[in-house]
């Protein structure tokens, strides 16, 4: 696949103790060989011609880096397209403009379709002993406002943001055993981060849907930084933006997870043109975007992306009346029939993709919940196993997923090189008799007159499962599971809550069971960090207080009490220090095996289908693929900047 430059081998940049110069040069050569030389052969979008003619914008040759990233669409089985058009997308609320930088997926390094890391914004990188990362920028690369993108942007982010504790300080992911990297500026386009020991998740972090941020548009952000801007200017801005201090101002103006500041220069394919609040968000092509197709046409093809704010209830109806040109979220599997039926009436096309979650719906028993009885019960592996095998997954699959999903524990999917059948099958068979036998061994009583067991303190053994209420699939699955649980003497009630509320309640130990998706990334390679498998963050509903203990370095929460969980934490720490691919593979397998055996989360089915609807004219959208937040960044790795609209007729 020429044009899309691989790292020398799978994650191999970190594999050997020494990355050879030969490999590095090969990478550089890869980037240069296919780029037509600057000054000839590039085509810019017609939309910008007027501004070029008026002298507001330089011609396309000057807007592209000297060596742009060339996407060879033929090699991807796609076609080179033409510029122009508007892509309408529906979002369920204003905050959903956060999908834009995820789908845009311009990263320093990013995953390609095979989930290998490739240089995207960078022209190349080198890794020395797995601990020292040298990054090479593209010469002539510019921010969306035309200002050169150079090592200064990294220096600013490092010295003036990351090293300043009052601006949030260093992200914990950048620390290795508490220690940050050394930062070196080698020249205007080259920089290096080096840690005392290997840091295998540095590159995956840069490729994440919400990437680790190590560069910022310095020329713009300096205007909001106390070290550079005058106090008078800052005071005026603080008042105008209604924030408390200049730190908040800086943070607000630099936010990229939700592109709310149209003035913030970006490297994404489209830049925001609308300032919230609004009902419609317009994103316009970034005239300085660094990718071209093999014919030298600057990407993205589509001039504008327009996001219309709607509600989640209405999105399926609007998609089914052709009001969206590309919709991969906001519609659910159950909406497929409706949209498919509309294909005959409207120029739309809908395909089924595969979701990358470890389980479409998973039950997460809160082992750190405040109720002492339930937390003790949930920590009993027999109870968790019993609940898992009490579930008739075949029924769920048949009733809600047309039998198209896979009945599985919450674990990696066959698409992952780490998949083993025993992980998927562990405690996932339907066996109510064994479940009853297991439950009899726990603190629960035998079923009483009403068919329900009792807790040691006399209460009915009823679990209140809380969902975020974002999809009816969850409540439907729960309805079925409630029947399955009742058969083994446990009541299950559902409460539909809301995402943020659920998170805070879970953190406070008020929820005994949360209903969520399974693993975010169920198609990992060993090079991707296994954080999800161990308590590392507070949004893991099965052990929020253990998770926050890790993320806060022991300042909050409590240390995991279960030996198996302690081992998971130790394994994560080992992965972060690992030096070789084999070692990482071994760690992953050990963690997956512990999960399979301990059933910390109860999975139902995975590999569930996700409808992806598009306008019939929209080209280059694959007919099927994997879709999820991790690792595909939703549509990100499929490069929506290469989607184009064919003329009608």
């Amino acid at each position, binding site marked *: 696949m020429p044009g899309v430059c691989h790292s020398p081998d799978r994650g191999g940049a970190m594999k050997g103790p020494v990355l050879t110069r030969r490999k590095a040069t090969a990478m550089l050569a890869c980037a240069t060989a296919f780029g037509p030389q600057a000054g000839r052969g590039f085509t810019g979008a017609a939309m910008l011609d007027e501004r070029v003619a008026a002298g507001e914008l330089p011609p396309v040759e000057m807007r592209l880096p000297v060596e742009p990233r060339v996407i060879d669409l033929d090699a991807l089985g796609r076609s080179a397209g033409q510029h122009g058009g508007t892509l309408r997308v529906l979002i369920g609320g204003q905050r959903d403009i956060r999908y834009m930088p995820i789908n845009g997926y311009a990263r320093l390094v990013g995953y390609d379709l095979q989930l290998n890391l490739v240089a995207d914004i960078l022209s190349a990188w080198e890794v020395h002993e797995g601990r020292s990362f040298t990054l090479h920028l593209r010469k002539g690369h510019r921010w969306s406002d035309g200002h050169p993108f150079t090592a200064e942007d990294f220096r600013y982010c490092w010295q003036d943001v990351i090293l300043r504790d009052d601006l949030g300080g260093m992200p914990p992911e950048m620390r290795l055993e508490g220690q940050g990297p050394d930062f070196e500026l080698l020249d205007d386009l080259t920089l290096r981060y080096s840690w005392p020991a290997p840091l295998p998740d540095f590159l995956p972090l840069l490729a994440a849907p919400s990437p680790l941020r190590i560069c910022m548009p310095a020329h713009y952000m300096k205007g909001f930084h106390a070290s550079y801007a005058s106090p008078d200017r800052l005071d005026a801005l603080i008042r105008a933006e209604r924030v408390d201090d200049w730190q908040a101002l800086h943070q607000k103006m630099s936010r990229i997870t939700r592109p709310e500041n149209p003035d913030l220069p970006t490297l994404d394919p489209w830049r925001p043109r609308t300032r919230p609040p609004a009902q419609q968000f317009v994103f316009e092509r970034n005239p300085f975007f660094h990718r071209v197709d093999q014919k030298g046409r600057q990407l993205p093809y589509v001039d504008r992306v327009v996001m219309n704010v709607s509600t989640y*209830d*209405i999105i*399926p*109806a609007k998609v*089914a009346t052709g009001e969206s040109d590309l919709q991969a979220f906001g519609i659910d599997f*159950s*909406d*497929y*029939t*409706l949209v*498919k*039926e509309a294909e005959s009436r409207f120029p739309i096309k809908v395909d089924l993709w595969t979701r990358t979650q470890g389980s479409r719906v998973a039950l997460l028993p809160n082992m750190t919940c405040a109720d002492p009885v339930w937390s003790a019960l949930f920590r009993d592996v027999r109870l968790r196993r019993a609940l898992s095998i009490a579930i008739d997954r075949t*029924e769920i699959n*048949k*009733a*809600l997923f*047309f039998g*198209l999903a896979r009945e599985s524990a919450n674990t990696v999917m066959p698409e992952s090189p780490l998949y083993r059948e025993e992980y998927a099958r562990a405690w996932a068979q339907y066996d109510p008799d064994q479940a009853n036998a297991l439950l009899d061994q726990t603190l629960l009583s035998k079923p009483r007159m009403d068919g329900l067991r009792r807790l040691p303190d006399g209460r*009915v053994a*009823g679990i*209140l499962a*809380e969902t975020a*209420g974002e999809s*009816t699939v969850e*409540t*439907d699955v729960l*309805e*079925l599971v*409630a*029947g399955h649980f009742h058969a083994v003497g446990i009541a299950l*009630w*559902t*409460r*539909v809550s809301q995402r943020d509320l659920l998170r805070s309640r879970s953190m406070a130990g*008020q929820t005994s069971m949360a209903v969520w998706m399974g693993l975010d990334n169920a198609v990992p390679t060993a090079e991707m960090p296994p954080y999800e498998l161990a308590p590392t963050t507070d949004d893991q509903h099965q052990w929020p207080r253990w998770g926050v203990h890790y993320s806060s370095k022991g300042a909050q929460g409590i240390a995991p009490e279960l030996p198996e969980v302690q081992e998971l934490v130790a394994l994560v720490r080992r992965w972060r220090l690992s030096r070789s691919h084999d070692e990482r593979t071994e760690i992953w397998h050990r963690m997956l095996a512990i999960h399979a055996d301990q059933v910390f989360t109860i999975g139902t089915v995975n590999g569930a289908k996700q409808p992806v609807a598009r306008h019939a004219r929209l080209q280059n959208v694959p007919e099927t693929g994997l879709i999820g937040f991790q690792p595909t960044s939703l549509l990100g790795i499929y490069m929506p900047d290469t989607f184009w609209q064919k003329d009608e007729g």
Partner: protein
Amino acid sequence: MNGPLPPPGRELGHYVSDIPFDPKAEPGGAYLGMGSASQFRLTWLKFRRHRLALISGVFLLVIYGSLLITEFLAPYRLDSRNLDFIYAPPQRVHLFHEGQWVGPFVYGQTMRLDLDQLRRVYSDDPQDIQKLRFFCRGEEYRFWKLLPADLHLFCPAEGGRLNLLGTDRLGRDVLSRILHGARISLTIGLLGTMVSFVLGIVIGGIAGYRGGWFDHAMQRMIEVIQSIPSIPLWMTLAAIIPMSWSPLLVYLGITVILGMLDWTGQARAVRSKLFALREEDYVLAAELMGAKTPRIIGRHLLPGVLSHLIASASLSVPAMILGETALTFLGLGLRPPVTSWGILLTEARGINIVALYPWLLWPMLPIILVILAFNFLGDGLRDAADPYH
């Protein structure tokens, strides 16, 4: 001036009928027997003339009566699922098969998975005649959650299936769910009204009879409560209900909430009525004879306003039913496995249902009918409550 008026100072002449008059005699004609008729009888006579109200009253009696034997009426249990027949459309009851009298029956259906559109396609199988059975042994249930039984008013043929209003996304019979849902939805209205009734009478009664600071305080409180928009207030109160409550307790909680918000109107009506009545001589007489406040209110004053209260209560039942439906629809009220009409409607929300499975909207019909019936009934009662008008 020769007028009919006598000169000043003289007596006015007047006409005296010479027809014999017996003050104890019964009136004749249309008013035959009414002279000594009780208040109840007068009300009933007046009410009977309001046709619509009468029909509505009978309809409601039947519906409420049926709540006692829901398990017998519904062909399926509330929780029985048939995953082989998900989203099956309503079956039509036929009487004739190819011109031949068969009696009520439905055709069996076959299901085919349309893997292109991912939908289940059902078609009648004309060879498969499934005769309905009546007073039959069908699905087992526990009558009132106590007695095991299996008698149904009607059931599908042996080994057959009967979904007269179709099935939902888990293959549950919509008709059975509507019947079971009626239990919750209709009783919530009654119980809620009862709560508001009691509150209204006690608070309104004391305020109306005693007046003074208590009356002042209550009036201000009522004004405050009435000035709060109802939906946000419901939402707040419903949010207070602890999440860990079992669905049944939530049901009671919702009832109490609905009642707590509705008593203000009742209390006002009682108060203003009592203001007038307490000036009556018989109240003074009772006071002089040493009757205590509760006795005066309960024995002497309330009977005078009771008919009005009943009429206004019957008008507030539908508001309660709608309140439950609205709360549940917003996701704040009842929650499965308790099934009410509000829950059924919540599940029928979404474009998919309207476009592909419209029979799931059936629960709207009983809601509309019951609300209308209550409104007509209340209308009739209000007219009848004051029979001399």
